[in-house]
């Protein structure tokens, strides 16, 4: 589970196959193709729902990749949400420091502008829009 979560988060923040204009893979080694280690990820709290599979006799299910699926959009959405007040409504994965910086500078600085991302959380959620312009 932890590995799957780390893989999904890595896709959101680090892992990228970069090609140059001639079609050569330039992130071809782990010097350039970034993988997180335990120093880069967070502690996970894992909970369980228990529903036996009905399609095999043991009632078992695969879980290894469960964490990869939702963790990627969760992190990207968190990054975009963090800079919404600068008028940012999308950042291409992986959300590198440079991409976030460019998105902030390309933004129109007004989250209320038409076309900003539709809120995907409770309108009265805490901390949203605080520190605009900071």
């Amino acid at each position, binding site marked *: 589970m932890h590995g799957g979560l780390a893989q999904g988060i890595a896709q959101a923040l680090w892992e990228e196959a970069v090609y140059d204009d001639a079609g050569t893979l330039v*992130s071809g080694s782990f010097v350039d193709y*970034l993988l997180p280690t335990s120093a880069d990820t967070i502690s996970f709290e894992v909970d369980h729902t228990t529903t036996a599979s009905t399609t095999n006799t043991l009632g078992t299910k695969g879980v290894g990749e469960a964490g990869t699926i939702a963790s990627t959009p969760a992190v990207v959405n968190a990054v975009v949400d963090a800079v919404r007040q600068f008028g940012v409504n999308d950042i291409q994965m992986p959300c590198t*420091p*440079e991409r976030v910086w460019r998105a902030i500078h390309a933004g129109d600085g007004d989250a209320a502008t038409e076309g900003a991302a539709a809120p995907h959380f409770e309108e009265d959620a805490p901390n949203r829009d605080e520190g605009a312009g900071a």
Partner: protein
Amino acid sequence: MIPVQFDYPAPTSVEEALAALAEHGDDAKVIAGGQSLLPVLRMRLNAPEVVVDLGGIAELRGIREDGDALVIGAMTTHHDVLNDPLVKEHALLLVRAEHQLADAQIRHRGTFGGALAHADPAGDLGAPALALGAEFVIAGSGGSRTVAADDFFVDLFETAIAEGELLTEIRIPKFTGWGAHYEKFVRVAHQWPIVAVAAAVKVDGGTISEARVGLTNMGSTPIRARSVEEALVGQPATEDAVASAAARATEGTNPPSDLNGAADYRSHPAPVLTRRAVLAAAGA
């Protein structure tokens, strides 16, 4: 993934090593801790016919005091520099930088002199060595010469060490009582810095009386941020005063563009990291 075959002399003295280099000329490469050269050999980015191993030369290892300077043998490992009480007392900036250099395994194999001689502009030791005004003792067939830090770093992966010469020791003036910090910006831990800043300051009664600032990966060599240093002197060690001086961190820089960031992007973190490094060094 396997290097081209090479001969492997393993001298036990500087004299023998210089003789091996003289014999083989530019067919030879020197290996210190091998943390940069071995990947280069394995990927066949370089294929020297002779690899001269300095690992057996005891006289190149160790740290000692010599008057107003610390003398660090070129083959002293990062781990030994990091944990040396003399370095902590007189050159705290080196401890701060070594602490963030790669990971523990590499710090046990890689050497202080090897990293500086490799002269990777993203290497973590160039900026601190430059900021502290290190002197580089280089041995050749005609004896030893000493090169100032300002003249040691020539270009990308290029230093004042000429063919047939060896870096034997690095002399660091004592900065006893100075605060120091190395602020390193990476995307994942243990990586080369996208940008990093080495700062050492002397604070007297809340006022910065002297400052040394070096920049990592803001040009083809480490860069001394002299205009930041000048702007810091006489200023209070406060957020506003330091931020104002740190804004000059991009003066005279020529940052590279690579997968971790374009040149114009690197100009953004440089002043930010400079402010953080100086404030941390000042204990503010």
